[in-house]
């Protein structure tokens, strides 16, 4: 709790500067978000695009960044050091975080497989969205969550102008946070907002009959579902994930707190308060693990925060996209 004011102040300042400077919350200039799609050769133009908004791709870097924040916290009391740290972040932050993130191969692989699985499943039901590759923007959700509503306005206008300049009419999103921003928050900032926003599970759940044609080898027979808070309580996307998992032949189990009453994974406060985040996630993962050792999530933040317990508790945390990846790529 000590130094929270200066910690939050520094986090807000760094985020704001990063987004203003580079359009990216991590402040990275070199694209890290398009590598997963390099071999897929997705069309780069189209009225409908897949918008990952970099969420799955930034997971290895987020883990490193929160680690660095935690280690720098004791130093924040030293006069003048916060500003020095901010400058260090600008000068060498990208290089250091990129290097350290190489150790996070497991979560990187999960994220990449999830995105590839989503694309494969969409393709199986006849949806072939374009992907903007290096031009793909970040939604700005973290700034919004932290109360930087005024500061986020220029970023939102910039992103929307870019999307309209490419004649985009429909966005297919892959995570709840971006879906929430693009569907509920952007229209508050943009007059006559006219981009249709659909989450991939909404599309797949309408066509689950086609998904039955894929032959899911090596998938768990039963799995317990962890609903994302944003997905259920903000977006009302609840049954869609269940329909899709069931269509893959997986038997779904419900934990004690589920659907509209789902419990948080602790992810949203990881950026500044990792101890609290871990206490919350520890409660939730034990609740899930008591039902089944295979756990399914539909959010990259939940994925990162619950995956950390895989070894300790002997569980396997699957993203829905991963299940689709293995289902669509099984022989």
């Amino acid at each position, binding site marked *: 709790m000590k130094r929270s004011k200066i910690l939050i102040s520094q986090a807000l300042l760094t985020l704001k500067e990063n987004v203003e400077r580079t359009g990216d919350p991590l402040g990275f200039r070199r694209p890290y978000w398009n590598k997963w799609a390099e071999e897929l050769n997705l069309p780069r133009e189209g009225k409908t695009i897949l918008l990952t908004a970099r969420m799955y791709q930034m997971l290895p870097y987020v883990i490193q960044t929160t680690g660095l924040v935690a280690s720098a916290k004791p130093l924040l009391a030293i006069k003048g050091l916060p500003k020095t740290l901010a400058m260090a972040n600008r000068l060498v932050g990208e290089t250091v975080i990129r290097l350290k993130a190489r150790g996070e191969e497991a979560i990187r692989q999960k994220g990449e497989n999830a995105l590839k699985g989503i694309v494969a499943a969409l393709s199986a039901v006849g949806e072939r969205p374009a992907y903007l590759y290096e031009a793909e923007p970040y939604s700005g959700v973290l700034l919004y969550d932290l109360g930087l509503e005024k500061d986020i306005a220029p970023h939102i206008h910039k992103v929307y102008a870019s999307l309209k300049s490419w004649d985009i009419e429909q966005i297919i999103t892959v995570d709840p946070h971006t879906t929430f921003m693009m569907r509920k928050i952007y229209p508050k900032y943009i007059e006559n907002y006219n981009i249709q926003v659909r989450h991939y599970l909404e599309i797949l759940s309408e066509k689950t009959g086609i998904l039955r044609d894929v032959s899911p080898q090596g998938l768990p027979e039963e799995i317990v579902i962890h609903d994302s808070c944003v997905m259920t309580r*903000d977006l009302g996307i609840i049954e869609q994930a269940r329909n899709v998992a069931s269509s893959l032949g997986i038997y779904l189990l419900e934990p004690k707190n589920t659907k509209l009453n789902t419990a948080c994974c602790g992810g949203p406060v990881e950026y500044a308060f990792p101890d609290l985040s871990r206490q919350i996630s520890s409660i939730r993962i034990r609740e899930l693990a008591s039902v089944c050792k295979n756990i399914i999530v539909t959010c990259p933040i939940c994925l990162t925060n619950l995956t950390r317990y895989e070894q300790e508790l002997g569980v396997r945390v699957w993203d829905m996209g991963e299940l689709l990846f293995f289902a669509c790529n099984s022989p």
Partner: protein
Amino acid sequence: MDVIETDTAKDILLEKTAKCRGCRFCVDVCPTYQASDGVESFSAYGRMQILRRLLLGILGFDDSFTYVLYSCVQCKRCEVICKSKGQALDICQIIQLGRSLLSRNLVIGNSNEKI
């Protein structure tokens, strides 16, 4: 969208937080309350009361209150129970608006500013 100006935001927050009937049903379901072994300041109810007193100038803005307000995970579980008890306060929106008032000061380095 027009971002809500500071004075308007304060009025909105005072009006909304006054509607809380203090039934405390939102306390037990809050993940940060559970994780803190039952400290009421880390619940939705606790946060709303702290925010109200910060706005009224009864409390001063310090490290612990910063922690309390920014540690809300915005999961909206409190809103589900609030609605089920017939009140339906937008608790997370209230906390979010409180944060936006704080963030405006904190982001420009005014870590000693009052809310």
